Every structure is written in structure tokens, then in C-alpha cells.
């Protein structure tokens, strides 16, 4: 009788409920672990890391195991560099888990372990660090608390940087210790790709330093510097002020963590005159020495237009209009062109569409189609008001002229190193011709007059080098249909007769001085002369042409 009961029970356990018990036994023994993929490194063009993922440790506590909180807090405070009062509060919670410090350096974790405090453990994790702090932070972006890109390159290339997590099964003994023999990696983690930028770290630093100094000196809202290699479209530096330190995101101003070089849409002002000029030259309507009569005031489509400085009737050449940055002169040129041709060239230079630089959030600007133009649109656009552009779009216009009239899509990612360790350069940028090489040369010659003593930007001159460039002092929309403050710009290239670098400086709403030649040109000079030295670009030792500004 007893035997049959036992036998029945045996059959029940081994026969009927067998699979369920086996599964629960396996569950107790078998643990599944996610093997996190290491996030790729972002480097500058020379391979110096600008963003990388390193080992770190979380310091956690089991408050139920700590009977006396005070000595534990006192011992940890100097090691973790956290106030002991704050630690006491963190340790005094009920439950079995309290995070005391997130992602501390392994050396710190070692010191915590060495204290052998009851209920305190360190858990291995990883941490995204930006070794140079705020260097190129607006380009790099940042990651959230779980290491996902939330801005800049970190967001734009999230998929490539992240890689794929792996899975590991392993068996543990009754007391939770892994059985050494039982490891079973189901899928190994695939690390993320490393991204190499076209940014040069030293020039980036100098650009940030110079623009930050000028933003604070002129009490501007913000400032941007973009330096490009016009021959291949590569961005050598993209500096934003004020910036932020992605290592300490909590302390950053939320307004400063974007990249206004590609997201901020503003009215370009007189830097746009180069498009008006290039259209007139390309359509063979004018030559650099074509004569124009500039009246003190021009009434067009019922509006009166003035120049920045009051003057009598002037006799300027096309070069003179550019050098003195005459609005009335630009309007006269645009009337030769007509709306359609003006619009054609604005589009051909890339206004009204994203440049394709590959940075998240890039804006296309505001360029209404000709059908929506009013009578005042053409004269206004001729000197750069009434349209919205981004800094990268303007830099691309000048890079086109620097590159002999061929527009090269700006790029900021040079290439990627995949998990197999092989470096793949980025695909070659798209190129298309906007103006002829001859017109581009004429425009550069004309822009050299801007840097002369008679021009608007003698402060941009770099001793020994031929510099071409253009100033812009635009009225800034106040967001309520009117204007308040200025956008001061200088865009230039060096050496003018064989440009290797294009540099754009934009200051938004400077309050101490506001002319582009006055506040932006000095920054151009500082950054460009540093870059010429750093990159070893020698002067060309040619003489600039004699510019004829008047007739």
C-alpha cells in the first residue's frame, strides 16, 4: 500500500510534471547576460579621440546590510568626493539597493573596494567621455544616461556607433556563483564603428577660443566659426560659442547644446552680394570694372533703400560696389539680372536646401519661390535681406568661389573604421559647377579689394598672404516682423589666388560694435592665420591685382 503511494508519486514527479520541474531547475541554474557592445570612438582627422567609451564602475549599496550608516558615509565621502551628509541620506533609504555614484573611474572603484565596507559594492559599467571637454562639443553632440546619442554626430551616427549587443548564457551554482565550465556565448557583441571626423583638433580649439573671446568682448548672443577646405568640402573646424561640456551635461544651458552652424536660420546680409555679383559676371552682364552710378537714395517698388553710410552720388565699378558693400549698387545689379536669374543662382549655390553635411537637425533656410516674390523681394535679396540661410550654406557659397566655381558638398565625417578594423573613407562628395573658373577668379580678385584699406575689412588682412573675403552686417529679425540688432559676418579665403582654406565668422546680435569688418574680421584673421601655420600653407608670393573701385 505504502509502496504504491510512493510509486504513484514517483510517476507523477518523473513522468507527468517532469518537463516543468526540469525547466524550473534550468531556470534556477541558467542565467542570460547581455554582452554590451562597446560604442565606437569619434576622433579628429589625425585619430585623436574626441569622444570615447571607457570602463567605469557604479558604486551601489545594500542599505539593509548597513547597521551603522555614519562611519560608512564618512569613509566613502572623500573617496567619492560626495558630501557625507548626502551619502548618509542615500544610505538611509529602506530596501536593498541604493546607487551612490554613477560611473566613477575604476581607480576610485578600487579604492572603494579596498575599504571593504559592509553592504557596499562596485558594479562594472562603461562611460562616454569627451577628453577635451567642450572641444567640438556642438559637433559631437552627447549621449543620454544609457549611452544613446542624443545630439550631433552621436545622434546622426547612432546606428554605426552603437554596434550590436551580444548574449551569453551561463550556469550558476545554488549560491549564485557562476559555474566556470558552464559558459555559453550565444552571440558575441559586435562593437560599434569608429568615426573619423574631418575636424582638426588644434584649429578647432583655436577657433573656439577666438569666437568665445569675441562673443564675450562684443556681448553677442552667440558666435559661429566654420573653416572648410574648399577643394574637398571637408570641414576643418566648426566652433560655436557659447558651447557646453558634454562631460557635464547637467550643468549645460539647454540653449547651448545644439549646433547653430546648421540649425540657426538668419538673414545673411551683404555676404549675399557675392551671389548677385557672380550672377552678373556669369551671365556676362557686367565685368569687374563695369561702371555704376550710385545715388544717395534709391526708390524701388515704393521703398527707399539706403547704404550703411550716407554719401552723395558715387561713381563705382562693380568691384567698388563689393568693396564698399553698397546696397544700392547691389540693387542696380540685381535689376539687370531679374528675379528668375537671381533665384536660379541662389538655388545653384545651395540656398533653400540642406547642404548634406550629415549633421542632425540641419535646416534648409527660407527661400520662397519666385512666384511668391513681391516687388521688393529682388532688391532686398540682392543685398542679403528677406531670405533665411544657415552658416554652413554661406560657407559653402564662398567655398564654391574658392574652388574655381565648383560646389563640393561639405563633409564632416572623413571615414569609419568598422568592427573588422578596416578603415573605409566616406564616399567622395558630390560636385557640380555653379560658375565658370574665370568668373570665380574675377570674384576672388574683387574680394581682395574688400580687405584693402579702402574696403570694409582691412582688419582681416594676414601679413604675407593674399586674402579675399566679404563682410556682412545684416539686420536681425526680431521674430515679430521687425528687426532688432545685427548679424555681423565675415567670410574669407586664403591664399586668394589659390585658396586652401575658407573661413566664415558669424556673430549674432553683437552689442559692442556690429559691423562685420569690425567684429567678425579680426576673428577670421586669428583663426585663419593659426590654421595657415598649423597646416603649413605657404604664402603664394604673388601680387594682388590693382583694383579699380571708381571711375
Amino acid at each position, binding site marked *: 500500500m505504502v509502496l504504491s503511494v510512493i510509486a504513484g508519486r514517483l510517476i507523477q514527479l518523473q513522468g507527468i510534471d517532469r518537463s516543468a520541474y526540469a525547466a524550473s531547475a534550468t531556470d534556477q541554474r541558467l542565467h542570460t547576460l547581455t554582452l554590451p557592445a562597446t560604442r565606437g570612438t569619434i576622433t579628429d582627422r589625425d585619430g*585623436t*579621440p574626441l569622444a570615447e567609451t*571607457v*570602463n567605469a564602475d557604479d558604486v551601489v549599496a545594500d542599505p539593509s546590510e548597513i547597521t551603522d550608516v555614519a562611519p560608512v558615509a564618512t569613509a566613502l565621502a572623500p573617496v567619492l568626493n560626495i558630501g557625507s551628509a548626502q551619502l548618509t541620506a542615500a544610505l538611509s533609504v529602506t530596501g536593498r539597493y541604493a546607487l551612490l555614484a554613477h560611473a566613477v*573611474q*575604476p*581607480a576610485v572603484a578600487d579604492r572603494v573596494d579596498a575599504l571593504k565596507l559592509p553592504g557596499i559594492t562596485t558594479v*562594472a559599467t562603461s562611460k562616454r*567621455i569627451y*577628453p*577635451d*571637454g567642450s*572641444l567640438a562639443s556642438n559637433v559631437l553632440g552627447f549621449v543620454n544616461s544609457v549611452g544613446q546619442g542624443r545630439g550631433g554626430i552621436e545622434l546622426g551616427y547612432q546606428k554605426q556607433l552603437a554596434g550590436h549587443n551580444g548574449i551569453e548564457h551561463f550556469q550558476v551554482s545554488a549560491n549564485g556563483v557562476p*559555474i*566556470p*565550465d558552464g*559558459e555559453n556565448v550565444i552571440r558575441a557583441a559586435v562593437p560599434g564603428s569608429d568615426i573619423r571626423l574631418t575636424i*582638426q*583638433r*588644434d584649429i578647432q*580649439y*583655436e577657433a573656439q*577660443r577666438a569666437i568665445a*573671446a569675441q562673443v564675450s568682448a562684443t556681448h553677442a548672443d552667440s558666435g559661429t566659426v566654420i573653416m572648410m577646405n574648399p577643394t574637398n568640402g571637408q570641414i576643418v573646424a566648426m566652433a560655436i560659442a557659447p558651447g557646453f561640456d558634454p562631460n557635464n551635461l547637467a550643468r549645460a544651458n539647454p540653449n547651448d547644446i545644439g549646433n547653430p552652424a546648421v540649425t540657426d536660420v538668419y538673414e545673411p546680409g551683404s555676404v549675399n552680394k557675392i551671389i548677385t555679383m557672380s550672377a552678373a559676371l556669369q551671365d556676362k552682364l557686367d565685368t569687374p570694372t563695369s561702371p555704376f552710378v550710385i545715388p544717395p537714395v534709391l526708390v524701388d517698388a515704393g521703398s527707399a533703400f539706403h547704404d550703411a553710410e550716407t554719401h552723395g552720388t558715387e561713381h563705382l565699378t562693380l568691384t567698388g560696389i563689393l568693396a564698399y558693400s553698397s546696397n544700392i549698387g547691389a540693387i542696380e545689379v540685381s535689376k539687370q539680372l531679374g528675379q528668375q536669374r537671381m533665384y536660379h543662382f541662389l538655388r545653384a549655390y545651395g540656398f533653400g536646401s540642406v547642404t548634406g553635411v550629415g549633421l542632425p537637425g540641419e535646416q534648409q533656410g527660407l527661400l520662397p519661390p519666385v512666384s511668391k516674390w513681391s516687388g521688393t523681394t529682388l532688391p532686398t535679396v540682392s543685398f542679403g535681406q528677406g531670405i533665411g540661410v544657415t552658416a554652413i550654406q554661406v560657407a559653402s557659397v564662398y567655398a564654391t568661389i574658392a574652388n574655381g566655381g565648383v560646389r563640393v558638398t561639405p563633409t564632416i565625417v572623413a571615414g569609419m573604421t568598422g568592427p573588422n578594423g578596416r578603415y573605409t573613407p566616406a564616399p567622395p562628395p558630390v560636385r557640380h559647377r555653379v560658375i565658370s573658373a574665370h568668373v570665380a577668379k574675377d570674384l576672388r580678385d574683387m574680394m581682395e579689394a574688400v580687405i584693402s584699406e579702402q574696403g570694409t575689412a582691412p582688419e582681416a588682412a594676414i*601679413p*604675407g598672404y593674399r586674402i579675399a573675403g566679404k563682410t556682412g552686417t545684416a539686420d536681425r529679425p526680431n521674430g515679430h516682423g521687425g528687426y532688432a540688432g545685427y548679424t555681423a559676418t565675415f567670410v574669407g579665403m586664403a591664399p586668394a589666388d589659390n585658396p586652401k582654406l575658407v573661413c566664415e565668422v558669424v556673430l549674432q546680435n553683437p552689442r559692442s560694435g556690429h559691423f562685420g569688418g569690425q567684429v567678425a574680421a579680426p576673428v577670421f584673421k*586669428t583663426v585663419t*592665420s*593659426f590654421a*595657415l*601655420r*598649423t*597646416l*603649413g600653407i*605657404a*604664402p603664394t*608670393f604673388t601680387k594682388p591685382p590693382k583694383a579699380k573701385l571708381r571711375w
Partner: protein
Amino acid sequence: MSVAEPLRRPFGLRVGTAAAAKPAARPVARPRPRLVLVAPARPAAGRIPFVILLGVVLVGGLLLLLMLHTLAAQDGFTINKLQQRLTTLTDTEQGLEQQVQADSGPAALRARASALGMLPSTVAAYHKLHGGRAIGIQQPVYSPPPVTAPVSTTTTTSTSAHAASTSTKSAGKATKSKSAAAPKSATTASSGTTTATTTHHRSGRHHHGATAKQ
């Protein structure tokens, strides 16, 4: 096989009733085959050695299994230990790399160079490799006191070294940080010369203003 069973008949011989039943069929009288006494089958071996053999196989197997397990466990522990060591070494490597990066970053270099009384050069001079002529603008960053190092007229590679050695004389400890401060200049022909012509050591503290005004 037991002894009770009939004996195996030798090949080609017929023994038994069938043969004996037909004596007339015998054409030729043949001699009767000689019957040989076959040795009896060996008695069954004792059980003891067999049990011992089984025991040996069992114990040996167990020992082997134990050894294999121990080895596997030992390997597991070795892997564990090496992985821990790898982690520690990686931590150390990353820590040192971060330190190097922090010290060699442009901000740190600028601060240290400034502390040593150095100024960033504002211009670069270039050498024509043919004729050894210095071209480009050469001007001091800061005028007094004029401790201008001599301009080298040697060619590319020796120029940087010369510049470094001259600035050692004029700026003492500055050599290392200056040559690091302009890492790219070593690659171009003679911007090293710029280092020599424009680097001055001085005790003044006005360099930030001087730089901005350049």
C-alpha cells in the same frame, strides 16, 4: 558449450547413425576413424578478478572524470583571473591614456606654455629649399626684451631640431612644451623656424592681451 554436446565432426568424415545404417553402401572398407579424447572445456574463471577489473575501470573512470572536471574548473578559474587582470590593465591603460590626452590637449598645452611665459606665434616663415633663403614675414610676437634666436638657414628636417635647441637655450624648460604645442608645424618645411624667430621667454604676464591685439 558443454561436453554433453556432440563433438564437432572432422571435415570429410561421416560419423554416426546415417553412415552406420548403410554399411552395404561402403564400396571400400575404410579404417574406422580413431576417436580422440578431447580435453574438457576449462571451468568458468573465478568472479573475483572480474569484479576487481570492473572496480578498477570504475575508479579509474571516476578519477579521470574528476581530473577532467578539475582541469576544466582550473581553466575556468584561470580565465576568470586573466579576465580580471585584463580589466585591471585596461583600466590602467585607459586611465593613462586619459591623462596623456588631458596633458596634450590644446587647452592644457596653451595653459602650460603661457605659464612658462611663452606666446603663440602669429606668423610663419618659410624656407626656399633651393638657395636656403628665408621667405615670408618674420616678426617677433613680443618686442622687448629682444632675445631673438638666430634664424636657421638649414633645410627642412634639421630646422625643427635647430629651432628646438635654440629655444632650449633661450627658454629653458620651454622646449618640450613648445615643440608639442605646435605638433603639426614639424611636418611643414620651416614653420619650426617660426618657433625660433618668434618664441621669447620673458617674465611678463601680459601675453593674453598681446596675443589678442595681434
